[in-house]
């Protein structure tokens, strides 16, 4: 079983990203589970969402404390007060950050077997007119990067999951996912 924890801010769509990832894995024949951190969500506040992907029935129903993969939708959460993004990350884990920087710019890259991957999902979301320029919605874009980095899901299934989940601008959202799939570093 692979456990993925997503960190974002209210309004960026972390919960939908977790759901799209789960649906994509389901289309690829996996057993899946996805859920939000059950808080009272406010725009801009730190939020978490979770996805489990397995070959067998998933029996566990609790939060994810030791993720294999971390996804950070908003780089300002790294080092932010009261938020420890890296908490519980398994050694050899992967961290995917929505950032304009190179992976080596993050001091935890290469330590404890952790590998950082970056992609400018914000620019890609803006280019595809997802959300507004001041508050772009990066959730669909980031799932493309997750597909590329982890190999857990195929990009075709990601696009299908986007079409089944996102109510409008389906094509632009799918293009954004394909874009991060090609450009993640």
């Amino acid at each position, binding site marked *: 079983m692979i456990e993925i924890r997503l960190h974002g801010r209210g309004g960026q769509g972390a919960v939908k990203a977790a759901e799209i990832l789960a649906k994509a894995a389901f289309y690829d024949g996996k057993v*899946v589970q996805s859920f*939000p951190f059950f808080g009272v969500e406010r725009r801009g506040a730190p939020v978490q969402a979770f996805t489990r992907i397995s070959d067998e029935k998933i029996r566990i129903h609790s*939060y994810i*404390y030791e993720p294999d993969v971390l996804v950070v939708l908003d780089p300002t959460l790294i080092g932010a007060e009261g938020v420890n993004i890296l908490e519980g990350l398994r050694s050899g884990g992967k961290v995917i950050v929505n950032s304009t920087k190179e992976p080596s710019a993050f001091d935890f890259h290469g330590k404890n077997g952790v590998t950082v991957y970056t992609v400018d999902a914000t620019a890609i979301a803006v280019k595809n007119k997802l959300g507004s320029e001041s508050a772009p919605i990066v959730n669909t874009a980031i799932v493309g990067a997750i597909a590329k980095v982890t190999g857990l899901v195929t990009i075709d299934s990601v696009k299908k999951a986007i079409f089944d989940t996102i109510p409008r601008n389906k094509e632009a959202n799918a293009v954004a996912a394909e874009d991060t799939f090609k450009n993640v570093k």
Partner: protein
Amino acid sequence: MKQVMNGDFAASYGAMSALVKYVAAYPITPQTLVVEKLSELVADGEMDAVFSKVESEHSAMAACIGAEAAGIRTFTATSSQGLLLMCEVLHWAARGRLPIVLANVNRAVAPGWSIWADAQDSISQRDTGWMQVYAEDNQEVYDSIIMAYKIAESPDVLLPMMINLDAFFLSHTSEVVDLIDKKDIEKFLPPYEPKFKLNPSEPHAFNALTSPDHYFELTYKMHLAMEKAKKRITEVGVEFEKMFGRRYGLTESYRIEDADTVLVTFGTIAGTAKETVDLLRKEGKKVGNLKIRVFRPFPQEEVCEALKNAKKVIVVDRDYSYGFEGAFFTEVKSALYNKGVMKPLYGMMAGIGGRDVSTGTLKEIVAKAEGEDPKNPYFIGVKL
């Protein structure tokens, strides 16, 4: 057909698949998605039913009682304060012998104001005469609602049934749910045809003033119906497994045959407990899990049989009967005493108000019971 859906949608599709013809419901977090989905399914013509928007949960149940008394298969859903507001009419539905099915999203009771998982709402309605099922995952939510109608509508049962699902851990968690084709449902679940119903061309009086000469017998008949329901739940579970391949009984045992310590759990904690059992077995500890799926009627024979070889029994309650202990703990103890089975029992309070119960929490619970005798009930992980 398999789909990824949350628990609220699984409950909604359960009602649709069970060919429910009338829904009256009032939205409350975290049940709101049930109301939204069912009204959408009815409005889109996918579900052939009438959906009544009502002004409260009390009205929702009252409307369901009216429709059910007229011989219509009905459904409603609620949570927490909503279920409590229904209390008066919950009794009415049960003593009226109306096989209504209700999905309750288990949520803590206020104050402190909470929207999170806790079984206090349904446990406090224990003595309303409703059968109560606690689901472990979204597939079980869906399947249980379909089975509920077949059980509740049995002429020798005729009692309403409440299917409980944990707030957020199921209601807002997306999982794979296998939906059953309508033509297969029709083979499994016959149409609802009550012997007596409100019918202008054949008038009857229902629920009239009942003297002490008769009321006692009405209660006794409900006792007999609850006893019969245990048998029907098992039979319907077997039939369901034959047709659809998934097995459900009154209880479910996991690795208990040689277990020294058995956890007794319900709801989503049961799934996490099975995972914990596997982890502890790898450490060489002989631990098992008994999931209590049906709380009313209480399956005392099955519970005693499952626990007969255990050296220690730990009951995990996500509910509390103020001034005593967790309700499941009381029932398990009472069942064992009734059958003359005596052994060390521990009542552990966990997950109250939506506090996460992880494999770590359950390992801590087992360790606590293996150490010096904890005082019952023991509140695991209290931060003061």
